[in-house]
């Protein structure tokens, strides 16, 4: 026990005197969390609040053009404009403006679009109601073509969202015109005194939908940049302990301390456990610091506060098991690496790779099938799973048991690998 205390004291002293190392361990992950969350939040807001910059050209000047224009104006998705440099936009100027990057999308409603739809709908109604004379059945085709110019740098998801909104407006407009035409035709054939269909269409919405997040958290949970990014970048920050652990082990190898320690009556496992205790504690402190930043500092920046969920025990468990996995991985890399440079590169690159595979940068569910399968084997993915269960799904401690135990089991695999490699080196 006294040896453990001596090892822990030594590691703590070295850590506390390494100011740059300490700042890397604590300040950098905090800065990373804040920066990434603010950036992600800004990106989210630029689309959802300020909207996609869109220029609208209405050559129709009738129901369809007015309806789509009003719809786009009211939509939070778009930053609507029908002018370019103070002049009414035309198809030509709109195209030029989009190509110059002034707008992301231009929507051009062609001339007589409403009239074409109306004529088409009238023909369909007459045909349906048998009002057309024999031999006069006309085949009206909805040939209205709405032109869109799209900035090549625009993300496909944004384009799809805007076009689906347009489809919705057009479909609503077409239904409305059809309803109006039906009303007029029916009005012409029903006898006087019988009530005609009112213009009820505009007042009722037969089908509506309600959106609710399926979470067990009291009062529900609203996904936002903080709730998504703080746990993700916390995991990433914790795993960067690998670089510090590798550096610590490599320095001992380089200056001969490791050799001297091997000549002493102290086992390899005692030395490693001493390191693990210190670095897992550091990681756990890092974790709490990052959670506190999420809860208390994010609102200072005008961002939503992190909702830490209902299970602090679960949060601690998943935090400490992530810390254990990260530190053990550092021990393995530090043991296997042959030089400080090799260890630093191997450590940082492997963390980046694991984070990419684990869904830190891009959610795993948007990855291709093979990558999604690989992602399921990334310890960062397990940690994310644990955090998401607590922070989004509102589940309790027991839900973190599976991902936490996977992380702990993997930690023992890493340590066993390091121990076996150490024995191999002695015999080699």
């Amino acid at each position: 026990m006294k040896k453990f205390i001596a090892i822990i004291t030594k590691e703590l002293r070295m850590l506390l005197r390494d100011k740059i190392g300490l700042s890397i361990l604590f300040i950098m992950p905090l800065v990373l969390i804040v920066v990434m969350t603010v950036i992600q939040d800004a990106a989210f807001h630029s689309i959802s609040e300020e909207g996609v910059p869109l220029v609208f050209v209405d050559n129709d000047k009738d129901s369809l053009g007015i309806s789509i224009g009003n719809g786009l104006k009211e939509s939070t998705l778009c930053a609507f404009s029908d002018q370019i440099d103070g002049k009414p936009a035309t198809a030509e100027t709109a195209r030029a403006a989009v190509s110059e990057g002034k707008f992301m999308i231009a929507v051009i409603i062609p001339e007589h679009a409403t009239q074409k739809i109306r004529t088409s709908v009238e023909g369909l109604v007459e045909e349906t109601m048998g009002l057309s004379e024999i031999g006069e059945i006309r085949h009206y085709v909805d040939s209205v073509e709405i032109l869109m110019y799209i900035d090549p740098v625009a993300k496909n998801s944004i384009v799809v969202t805007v076009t689906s909104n347009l489809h919705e407006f057009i479909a609503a407009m077409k239904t409305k015109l059809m309803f109006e035409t039906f009303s007029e035709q029916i009005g012409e054939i029903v006898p006087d005194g019988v009530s005609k269909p009112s213009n009820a269409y505009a007042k009722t919405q037969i089908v509506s939908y309600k959106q609710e997040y399926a979470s067990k958290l009291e009062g529900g949970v609203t996904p936002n940049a903080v709730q998504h990014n703080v746990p993700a970048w916390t995991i990433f920050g914790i795993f960067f302990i690998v670089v510090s652990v590798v550096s610590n082990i490599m320095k001992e190898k380089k200056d001969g301390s490791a050799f001297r320690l091997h000549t002493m009556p102290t086992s390899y496992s005692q030395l490693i456990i001493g390191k693990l205790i210190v670095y897992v504690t550091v990681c756990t402190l890092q974790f709490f610091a990052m959670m506190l930043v999420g809860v208390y500092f994010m609102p200072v920046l005008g961002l939503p506060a992190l909702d830490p969920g209902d299970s602090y025990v679960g949060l601690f468990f998943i935090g400490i098991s992530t810390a254990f996995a990260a530190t053990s991985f550092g021990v393995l890399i530090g043991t296997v690496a042959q030089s400080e440079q090799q260890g630093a590169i191997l450590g940082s690159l492997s963390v980046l790779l694991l984070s990419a595979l684990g869904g830190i940068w891009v959610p795993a569910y948007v990855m291709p099938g093979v990558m999604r399968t690989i992602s399921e084997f990334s310890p960062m993915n397990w940690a994310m799973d644990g955090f998401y269960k607590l922070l989004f799904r509102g589940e309790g401690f027991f839900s973190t048991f599976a991902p936490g135990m996977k992380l702990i089991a993997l930690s023992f695999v890493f340590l066993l690998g390091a121990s076996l490699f150490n024995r191999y080196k002695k015999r080699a």
Partner: protein
Amino acid sequence: MEQPIIQINDLKKTYAGALEPSLRGISLQVKSGEVYGLLGPNGAGKTTLLSILCGVVAPSSGTILYRNHPISGNIRQLKQEIGVVPQDIALYPTLTARENLEFYGAMYGIHGADLQSKIQFWLDQFELSHAANRRIDKFSGGMKRRINLIASIMHNPQLLFLDEPTVGVDVQSRTKIMDQLVELNKRGMTIIYTSHHLAEAENFCDTIGIIDAGTIIASGSPNVLIEQTPGARDLEDVFLALTNRKLRD
């Protein structure tokens, strides 16, 4: 000089992937209380031999007896009774001298007041008390060498391995280190010593073993080796005569 403390018989070592063996069947014995000098050119196998003797590297074959018992079955006890002074300054540069000694002392199982009194004793012996609370990275080369030595003798080992303990230090520090080593030997500590400082070895060692290409090519007291080598006036002449002048890069 009594019973052998270390007996090595036909010790061989070939590292994985190496084309040549590092040790090709070393046999020697070191008596208790003796100062045994292991001399040889670079790459001769000195460090490999020391690494095997102190339990850091496993031999490919051969036997090593420590106090007539194979070390393989009793490595923990061996490590408690030996001290190793590596050629590198194997100290933590950001820790003070006292903190380094506290840590290494604790690794030998010395704690509390006993540890503190031992640290103070050796700091006084090596005239380093004034710098006890100074970080190692602020020390001169000679001071580092002295702390490097103290870290390995605080637990009063029976057998001390010294790998070039005075390399790169000034005359004053070297004299202080050698005086203390002579004193330790007088008190019964067996020393196995490697150095390229042949005059120092000639004065310090009771027995010299000259190793080259993984084999002991000569052994005996310095005087006997000098007498047996035609034209040799000192150990350096003996060394050059036996290992020749070819560079070992």
